[in-house]
């Protein structure tokens, strides 16, 4: 084992693994970009990996890149391509260029600074970790980006194009604004503009009602002493564990009997209650962290408790309120089960319920995907704009999905 840990051998072994990763990545990326067939060639990528991996120990970064590109070009020329392409010449050249550069760059980063002779355990493990890191970035980016890429691109395609070649996501730019036909149809024929408004109003109302209920509750649990305080903060978490489907059934029955089914009033009544426990839990954690002295000073100066909450605690906890609001907004915006069970009238659908109604064999796939994009874009925009609050909000008290 010890004798095997030389720079060359480690480089070659990691090179084969990295070469495989890159060959698959380039093949998938090129397939999705052009719609042609690309597949990793086994002998090709093993050879490329072995040579480039071992060689990268000797040459610097740009040397490794040059080596990778040269290997790809050579192997493709002799008929053992690392990525086999059934495509036009330009795409073959691009594949060799991208593949070789990615292989070389990656290997240079992985084996950079390794001596060619025997390695210490540190050097060996560090190289393995660098490989795993590179692999991880590629892997995670791929699994996150591919579904969203497919979602957006499918929504821009026409039905025949989709059936003809499901891999071809290249855009037919000559269609101009016609690319957005699915969206136009959803907004005009399927009432999606209205669903957007409904979802937005319901989510905002849910946030407001949730805050109105949970702020006083959270303050009481966090600051005031009373019997049953620990029990209270625990049962909040417990309620949070009750599955929605268990509650949805009696709610459905109750709403059917009370005539609240198919009304947005019923939805606005029920959504906040599902979010109050988590909001209360998150807020009480934050309130506990605030210095009590400031509030006591306020009390000494003659403010009542409620005035203290309003004038001191709330202004101090604005960031937490933002986090909680965002999180609650996200829950309400994404909520599906209750909307699906309680709303049957197309004029009262929320966005998620509207998308569910698009899932039928009569409605083309790209409409469904366009609906998905319409529902995803606002929440993503909000999320990216306020990512810092969101991350904090998510970690503050919720592990729920």
């Amino acid at each position, binding site marked *: 084992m010890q004798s095997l840990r030389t720079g060359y051998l480690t480089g070659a072994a990691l090179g084969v693994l990295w070469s495989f990763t890159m060959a698959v990545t380039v093949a998938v990326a090129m397939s999705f970009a052009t719609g042609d067939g690309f597949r990793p060639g086994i002998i090709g990528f093993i050879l490329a990996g072995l040579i480039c991996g071992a060689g990268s120990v000797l040459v610097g970064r740009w040397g490794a890149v040059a080596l990778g590109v040269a290997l790809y070009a050579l192997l493709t020329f002799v008929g053992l391509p690392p990525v086999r392409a059934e495509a036009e010449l330009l795409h073959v050249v691009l594949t060799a260029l991208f593949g070789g550069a990615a292989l070389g760059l990656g290997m240079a980063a992985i084996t950079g600074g390794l001596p060619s002779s025997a390695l210490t355990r540190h050097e060996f493990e560090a190289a393995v970790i660098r490989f795993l890191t590179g692999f991880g970035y590629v892997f995670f980016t791929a699994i996150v980006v591919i*579904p*969203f890429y497919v979602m957006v691109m499918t929504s821009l395609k026409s039905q025949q194009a989709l059936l003809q070649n499901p891999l071809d996501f290249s855009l037919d730019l000559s269609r101009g604004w016609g690319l957005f036909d699915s969206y136009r149809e959803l907004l005009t024929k399927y009432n999606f503009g209205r669903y957007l408004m409904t979802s937005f109003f319901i989510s905002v109302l849910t946030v407001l009602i949730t805050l109105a209920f949970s702020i006083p509750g959270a303050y009481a649990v966090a600051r005031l002493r009373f019997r049953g305080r620990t029990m209270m903060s625990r049962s909040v978490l417990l309620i949070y564990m009750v599955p929605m489907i268990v509650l949805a059934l009696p709610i459905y029955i109750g709403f059917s009997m009370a005539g609240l089914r198919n009304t947005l009033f019923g939805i606005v009544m029920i959504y906040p209650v599902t979010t*109050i426990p988590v909001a209360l839990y998150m807020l009480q954690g934050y309130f506990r962290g605030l210095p009590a002295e400031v509030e006591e000073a306020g009390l000494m100066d003659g403010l009542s408790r409620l005035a203290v909450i309003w004038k001191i605690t709330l202004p101090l906890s604005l960031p937490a309120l933002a986090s909680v609001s965002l999180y609650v907004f996200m829950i309400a915006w994404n909520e599906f089960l209750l909307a699906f069970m309680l709303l049957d009238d197309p004029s009262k659908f929320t966005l998620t319920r509207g998308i569910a109604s698009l899932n039928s064999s009569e409605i083309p796939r790209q409409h469904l995907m366009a609906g998905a994009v319409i529902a995803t874009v606002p929440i993503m925009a909000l999320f990216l704009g306020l990512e810092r609050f969101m991350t904090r909000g998510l970690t503050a008290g919720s592990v729920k999905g």
Partner: protein
Amino acid sequence: MSSAPTSAPQPPRGRGPLARREARLAWQLLAPTLAAVSLVVILPLLAIFWISFKPVTLADLRPPAPVVRESLRGSGDKMRIEYSLRNSSQDQTVSGVVLTDTLPDSLSFNGQPEAPCVADGPAITCDFGDIEGGFRTRVAIPVTGQGDEDALEAAAEGSEPTITGTAPNILTNLNFSLKNFARVFDGSEFWRVLGVTLFYTFFGTAGALVVGLFAALLLDRSFKGQGILRGLYLFPYVAPVIAVAFTWVTLFDPFSGSANALLIRMGVSEGAINFFGERPLALIMVTLFEVWRYFPLSFLFILARMQSIDTDMYEAADMDGASPFQKFRYLSLPQLLGILSVLFLLRFIWTFNKFDDIFLLTGGNAGTRVLTVSVYEQAFDLANIGAGAAVAVVIFLCLTIFSIFFFHVMSREEGL
């Protein structure tokens, strides 16, 4: 204080008026939340226990009731108000059915109303007694009126008749049966569903945790673009479940899905694979979806914990010559064990409760029916609300066991 204390001063015992006032305020602040929660959580929970012991079907949600329609017919001497009455149920009796109505001013009686109706001033009362299932009848009240016939008709039909009658309501009577539970536990179906649920829950949770740990290790360093990558890796969790679930279905569609096209082009598979339609592949796919959708959460929590680990320890380990893997194995992992176990238990419970994902991906077909989907299927597809409630009770009991275990563990770990 006027009189000097006779003994050494004692600290006050018990709860003084201030403490009582504070407690009262606390309960007042909590009251709205408590009321709302008990209305929407505790009450439905009790209801579900109640319903699970009753053979209720979807049709029973509308209890049998008498239905009446009023119309003004004929003209001149033949003018009459007709009430057509029927029982909304085909098989259940409604008892004590009484119809009452008032004639509008523009109409007056023209002779005696048909039995069983009697006139009293402008008021009409008809006592039908008990009506059987499927009963329908029609009674005529001869009337006369002056003026435009359309106006008369509008006036007659404008005064809605009121009708009362009581029917046995299966939801509120006191007959209980264990039929629902017998049905749920009958045969091997239940145990298969439970097995699928446990597989999905365990591997979905563990997978999300392991993948999340890997992602956290990747991002636990500062480099340019770290924030962007962190945001990007959260996408699967933040996007609406319905959008991403349908995207997966589209992506893995056997006929027009890109994944199949890709696999065939790459020579990995011969023909199209029906990812969400074959056993046991469908179960593996929904579990993978669960891992994909929820790894961001585990990764956020693990990353938060990692960044709070003291760096001194790692420096000490470096001095002692620990290798990178040793540092992870002997330093990071023990530090993370607490958050990992809490996360595992919480996620386990919530994955167990998950409904939307599987419902949207496969609808519970192809061997992916979990308990929660089973509730929906029994209650709505098979229209047997009682059986659905019985499954819901089983879920709730499982959950209680998990929660007890969870709080037991959590009181040991410094918690979330």
